């Protein structure tokens, strides 16, 4: 992971209101330091569009593609 100093600490910092140069800084470091090939992917439970929970570890036995996105 990136150094703690560069990470947003609150939901408001995380959900910034304007894209700025600082938004783009440190990406290569983040890429290198985040979960790596060969490692177990961190488990999570997220909400599907119909409101039902989806747990990653329930998908064991299948290949899984995780693609990150947003509407903007």
């Amino acid at each position: 992971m990136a150094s703690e100093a560069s990470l947003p600490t609150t939901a408001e910092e995380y959900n910034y209101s304007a894209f700025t140069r600082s938004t783009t800084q440190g990406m290569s470091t983040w890429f290198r330091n985040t979960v790596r090939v060969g490692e177990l992917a961190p488990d999570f439970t997220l909400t599907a569009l119909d409101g039902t929970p989806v747990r990653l570890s329930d998908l064991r036995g299948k290949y899984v593609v995780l693609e990150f996105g947003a509407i903007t």
Partner: protein
Amino acid sequence: MREPHPGEHYGPHRSFAQKLQYARDCCAQDGIRTRVVVDDLDGTMHRAYGLLPNMVYILDREGRVVYKAMWTDHTEVAAVLANLLWAEEQQAQGIRVKPSYVERYVYLPATYDPALRERVFARAGPQARCDYERVFGSAS
């Protein structure tokens, strides 16, 4: 994940219900048919996976990362999945195959899919374009 280019029409997430609605809008507008799940307002899952804006991971049947890349290349993702299935077939036939571990970090043209960028700016609102051009310039 969070909105990378918030604007007047689609601003930053301020509630989980809003974030969920944005995801529903995105699927409806873009015709997305894959399973979509929504992170919490703090981005807990996004942080655990590196906080980057356009990541793609492929996990094997045991849940281990076998591929990760910044920016999604669907052709490459399809090729990796095909290769994984091919390897399983070989192993099922008793043929030994060796894994090759790759993490891709490459530079792509800044003009990567400009039509998509224009559509995103139009959808987000004028502020999204202004902020982007303030960082990268109007020609990039």
